[in-house]
């Protein structure tokens, strides 16, 4: 158990969340990863995926995969399916 708490306190974002939980500001952590479906995910996105999905996992919460479709542009299914595949396989 102690080891778990130790591994959670590895970055400043996790520290903030730990505090928010300790101060009862939140109960269940919910994060999101909101890619725009206009390209393939790269290693930079991997950092964000690991962060958001990793935090949800570590704190027993959830992370939403949210495709930004607020603009009326044609959707490229190639991008959407690749993003889903990449995010799922990574986590």
């Amino acid at each position, binding site marked *: 158990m102690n080891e778990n708490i130790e591994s959670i306190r590895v970055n400043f974002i996790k520290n903030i969340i730990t505090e928010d939980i300790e101060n009862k500001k939140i109960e269940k952590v919910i994060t999101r990863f909101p890619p725009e479906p206009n390209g393939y995910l790269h290693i*930079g996105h991997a950092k964000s995926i690991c962060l*958001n999905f990793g935090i949800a996992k570590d704190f027993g919460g959830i992370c939403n995969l949210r495709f*930004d479709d607020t603009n009326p*542009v044609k959707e490229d299914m190639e991008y959407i399916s690749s993003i889903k595949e990449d995010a799922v396989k990574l*986590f």
Partner: protein
Amino acid sequence: MPSNYFDKMYDYAVQLINAGLAYVCDLSADETREYRGTLTAPGTESPYRKRTIEENLDLFLRMKNGEFGDGSKVLRAKIDMTSSNINLRDPVMYRIMHADHPHTGNKWCIYPTYDWAHGIEDSIEKITHSICTLEFEDHRPLYDWFLEQLKIHHPRQIEFARLNLTFTVLSKRKLLQLVEEKYVSGWDDPRMPTISGLRRRGYKPEIIRNFCEKIGVSKANSTVDFALLEHCIREDLNVTSNRYMGVLRPLKVVIENYPDEKEEELTAVNNPADPNSSSRVVPFSKVLYIEQDDFMENPPKDFYRLAPGREVRLRYAYFIKCINVIKDSNNNIIEVHCTYDPETKGGNAPDGRKVKATMHWVSAKHAKKIEVRLYDRLFTSEFVENEKDNWKSCINPKSCEVLKESFCEPYIANLKLDERFQFERLGYFCADSKDHTIENPVFNRIVQLKDAWEKIKKKMGNSIIN
């Protein structure tokens, strides 16, 4: 999908209009820019800012109903045209675009801006922590303002520094250019820093997660050395991968004193780094292939591998000694003739004599022909972003070398499709997920081994390369 929230977003916009916190503005895009001011000069209030709530409600409804043309009106938040944060100078919330949406069809002709939509999406989904990259730090006051005014669930936005990597680009626009202009074979080209490219290159998910863990998360921008990513995978592969023998650029070796028809099955350990490793058999016969680089007719002092008159060890097999060199009419070496010492089977001489080199090999009769793709970094410049518009001029022309006449030991037919392995002394490899078949094997080099010889070569310059 955020488009599911369009109705809710519209209602929230009406809520802000009713509170006197949003107005319909008729300024053109150019005028809006002019009125916005600069980093040093405050903005000027739009002449439409004083419209009454009733007028704004009516105009916004008519915007939604499609009465106005694209770009003729926008809905703006009424915040502060003199704010030091330009994002707070009456930012646009909705613009008119008569365009079909892939999910909502022609229901809407007004669409929300990113700043307006994003916080509401987070709020509706009850996000607790909205984690984004540093460039959104200046947008946080606006994110907070919208949610405070709407009095709805308010996630906490936290910014972190995005990842920068040496010897690569991570801008979507540039990656798209690499694909469209055919510098690479596609988004999943094994040289691409995309997740699918890395996967095809042989990077397992846990390697990428481990890398992300190692680089950590901070608020300070920095550039991570690409070598760290390579280090992560090398560390893993050293422990987890089996070793096989393959010869990339074959040179024929004939063992003159080995019986013509004789064949032997030698035992080889699959992973010397794993004490519980299994083993396999490797066939040996009179004609072998060795690496062209492992032979020099006139070797310099620091070259310890095969040369005329010199004895070396063939891994898991015998000591062999070079006694003759066969050349074609153009003076190219086409065969090296050797003798072997039957007493050295397994790799050690009973009389205790030593050799300075151990080399990999394959039996020509048993070898399987394979294609090998040797990948290197896509860019020659460490900081590609610093090259600005010249970034394409530092694309590495030698980032992919394809060898179609390589050979490997027959055991490779037993490989699992997603198995990563080491070709002894050459690097770590995996089957290409797109082009590999049992009949025509194609292997990608994941990463090189550290190469002491290369370092020596560099130190001494080109003088020693024949």
